[in-house]
């Protein structure tokens, strides 16, 4: 399918000035547009100049011993067989891509639920003190 100048301009922005590196399904149409249209050719040249300017951005090579440094730092570390609680929770939510506040709130709720589940609730579970029961019954009898 033929590509007009506007479509060509959009593709230049997305895939770059080198049409030979465009995705296969649009490469042919892009090359055909360059051959056919003076406007597309000029857009391509202009975009190549723009990309040349972008390429001048500052970049510093890493230290030559970066890989060695990482490896020796790793040897000094203990490997953990079991994840910590925070990591365990994080791995549970990893796929959901939750924002941090939501993740924190959910983690707090879960921890609260777990703690609450294991704590005995005295008002329900504790045996009633027989003396307190007797006092209560006596006062109830007096009222009646």
């Amino acid at each position, binding site marked *: 399918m033929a590509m007009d100048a506007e479509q060509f301009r959009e593709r230049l922005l997305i895939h770059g000035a080198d049409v030979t590196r465009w995705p296969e399904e649009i490469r042919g149409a892009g090359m055909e547009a360059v051959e056919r249209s003076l406007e597309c050719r000029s857009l391509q040249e202009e975009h190549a100049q723009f990309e040349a300017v972008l390429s001048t951005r500052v970049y510093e090579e890493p230290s030559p011993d970066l890989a060695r440094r990482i490896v020796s*730092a790793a040897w000094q*570390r203990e490997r953990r067989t079991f*994840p910590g609680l925070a990591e365990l929770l994080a791995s549970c939510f990893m796929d959901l891509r939750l924002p941090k506040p939501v993740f924190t709130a959910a983690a707090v709720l879960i921890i609260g639920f777990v703690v609450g589940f294991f704590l005995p609730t005295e008002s329900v579970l504790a045996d009633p003190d027989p003396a307190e029961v007797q006092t209560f019954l006596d006062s109830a009898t007096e009222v009646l």
Partner: protein
Amino acid sequence: MDDRAPALDDDLLLRRIQDGNHEAFASLVQRHAKPFYSLAYRIVQHREDAEDLVQAAFLKLWERPDLWDRRKQAKFTTWFYTVVTNLCLDHTRRKKPLPLSDEIDFVDRRPGQEDFLHHKQRRAMLNGFMRNLPERQQLALNLCFYEGLSNREAADIIGVNLKAVQSLIMRAKTTLREWLKDALVKVPNGDGR
């Protein structure tokens, strides 16, 4: 050292790392430290910080190799680019950015300095413009233009769909072009004339 280790693919190396194999870890680091550093540098714009962040990411992998799950993640590099990216973004959010005006001084009248300073100032200006782009536009441009990753891979790393990443690249480039055009009109020869 296992002589065959460097030729193994990433999946196999990771399986060996999960078994505690040091040579496999060394091979993986040797193979990927530079490209991951390159992305980290593009984001944080500071060599030592970028190196420390890449090291932190690899140490995390060494300590917890089970974080990489072949069944969940499509490709090791895509997953690890995400890990490095998140560490770098956290780092840049914590660090206060330099104000643009401190870096860009268009006028320098010292004799013989014009060409060198013009070049240096343009680079600083470009860096300043990049930093002023929204975070996800910067990331899309860093991944696709500077690191040469495919749009699909960048979309997976950023966590958006393909159309969204293409739109981010288009907006980033369009904005940068406008800013650069305006700046070059302001200073056509780099010497303020």
